[in-house]
């Protein structure tokens, strides 16, 4: 494009994907800073660590969603797959008495297969990702109810030990789940920015036709992106089942929207091919910080959380829209 050359440097700077991502980090810092000034005790190390501990599953979920959105799609089934994973894990542990290692492998493989199946249908029949993953969401929730309509409590020793474990760090502690989420984040950043698969995802999301003309295997990339999202949802489900020590069909209601919101606030564009995977973390932390601030305030009802998240989504979408126009 000729215009890109003539564009003033300021605009190039404004257009850089890291600009919107940086805004989120600044926002997070500002929220915590103001919060810390108003409510003493908010800025204690453990409160910040708790942000990560309580939202570990959402970080993993948002990472998977991030890959799908980068590839130009959307995955509405993540919350339901999370619920199905908690349910499958709980049932396999409590009723079938499988060893935990086998359960973990089976649930993760199942999630990846579920995602791959949806990706295959989307690619093979050229269907809208929105409607296919919507059906996937129905399917996963329905399968939950087929396992059991009641909540299943988990008292398997390995899972209870995991849920109670505290890893001491810098005077506070993190849960194993939070550590796993951070490790997954590092792996995802490596996958997105330092591998051929990551570059293919960006290329397909940016412009599918030109990606295909460059000789990239669009179908393989897309199916892998959905499989990755399914895998992440299953892992998030395992983390959630450890966090709550239960499997329940109603777990993760509306969590797909939290994941999408986190990814958007993290600076990703829903049209695909634009943004950073690491934004998943900052996005989730912003959502978590809103909840924490409202909890610390004590006078605002918890319903404000949804309204504030909606308002934030609006601001971010509009800002991104204006930036991409500039």
């Amino acid at each position, binding site marked *: 494009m000729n215009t890109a050359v003539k564009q003033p440097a300021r605009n190039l700077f404004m257009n850089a994907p890291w600009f919107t991502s940086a805004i989120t980090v600044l926002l997070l810092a500002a929220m915590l800073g103001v919060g810390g000034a108003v409510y003493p005790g908010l800025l204690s190390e453990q409160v910040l660590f708790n942000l990560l501990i309580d939202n570990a599953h959402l970080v993993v979920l948002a990472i998977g969603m991030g890959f799908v959105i980068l590839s130009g799609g959307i995955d509405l089934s993540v919350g339901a797959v999370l619920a199905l994973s908690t349910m499958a894990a709980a049932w396999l542990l409590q009723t079938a008495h499988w060893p935990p290692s086998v359960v973990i492998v089976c649930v993760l493989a199942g999630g990846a297969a579920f995602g791959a199946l949806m990706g295959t249908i989307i690619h093979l029949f050229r269907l809208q990702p929105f409607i296919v993953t919507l059906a*996937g969401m129905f399917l996963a929730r329905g399968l939950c*109810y087929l396992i059991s309509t009641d909540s299943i409590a988990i008292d398997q020793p390995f899972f209870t030990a995991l849920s109670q474990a505290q890893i001491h760090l810098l005077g506070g502690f993190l849960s194993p789940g939070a550590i796993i989420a951070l490790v997954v984040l590092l792996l995802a950043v490596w996958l997105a920015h330092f591998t051929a698969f990551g570059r293919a995802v960006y290329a397909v999301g940016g412009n599918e036709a030109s990606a295909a003309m460059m000789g990239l295997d669009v179908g393989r990339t897309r199916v892998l992106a959905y499989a990755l999202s399914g895998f992440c949802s299953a892992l998030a489900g395992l983390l959630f089942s450890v966090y709550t020590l239960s499997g329940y069909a109603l777990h993760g209601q509306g969590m797909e929207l939290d994941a999408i919101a986190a990814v958007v606030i993290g600076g990703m564009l829903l049209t695909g091919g634009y943004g950073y995977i690491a934004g998943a973390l900052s996005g989730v932390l912003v959502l978590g910080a809103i909840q924490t601030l409202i909890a610390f305030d004590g006078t605002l009802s918890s*319903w404000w959380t949804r*309204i504030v998240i909606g308002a934030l989504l609006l601001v971010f979408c509009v800002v991104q829209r204006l930036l991409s126009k500039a």
Partner: protein
Amino acid sequence: MNAPLHDAAPAASSSSALDDQAARFALLRHPLTRPLAALLVLLVLDAVLVPGFFHIALRDGHLYGSVIDIANRAAPLMLAALGMTLVIATRGIDISVGAVVALSGTVAAMLVNGTPGSPAMPLGAALAAALGVALLCGLWNGALVAGVKLQPIVATLILMTAGRGLAQLLTDGQIVTVYEDSFFYLGSGYLAGLPVSLFVVAAVFALLLFLARRTALGLFIQAVGLNPVAARLAGLRTATLIVFVYAACSLCAGMAGLLITSNIKSADANNAGLLLELDAILAVTLGGTSLAGGRFSLAGSLVGALIIQTLTYTIYSLGVPPEVNMVVKAIVVFVVCISQSGELRALLKRRPA
């Protein structure tokens, strides 16, 4: 996308294709054929398996029976699906339908009851206010899509998140029970032996059908859905049109919210209309409207909504655990979507050769 302007196509082709075979083919290709056939299969299944399915009794001047029950329960979904059809026809999507249902139901219930601060409003004013709130929601969505040019799914995601929060904030998460008797007429009253809700649906359907078929509006909506850029270059005011369809969709959702609130005699901001947007999209898809925009069928969406409700009824009445309902729904969506795709047709055509 493969068969643009499907509704108009049979009229054009029938003049040239006079022979019998082509006419039969046109009947098979008619957009309503498949959804109606699906509904028929379900109804036949019910007629065989459920004793007295088609039995309709007259009690106290009201008609009672399974069929009427299904239609009555499908009324909110039919309304939501009608509005959604217009939005989808312009290549949009509105996932805030459930939130608008909760919001309008809550507003109506609170105004009819009256709050400690303000006295109870007359019924008409309360209903109008609730629909006004729904209209505002629609204008908001439309402005975001047409003005700010956000993707429809993102634009309506904002209201989906915030709208229900707003409704919950209004009621403090409590269920608001309505005590005003005249309010119940809308959702559980009878007119000429039939549930009033069916007349509401019929009126909305007739109005939309009139606008789509007797005015140029239907053509404009199809044009925007088929090619927004070409439509704008041809001189259509696409932005106004898009705002209109989102406003219409939210109004339909608001009306559905009134029906639901009036039917259960209370407003539940947490659960009213939860996942209704998904059922509405499903109904629209089942009815033969292409999610790619352009081709749309209002009658098809009504049939789609009836299919969903009949399916639910069948599953319940066959004694199948209701848990299976969602799995069945999911499989139906997969099958319908795959069968609609041009790729499958290409695959099938290639195989016999």
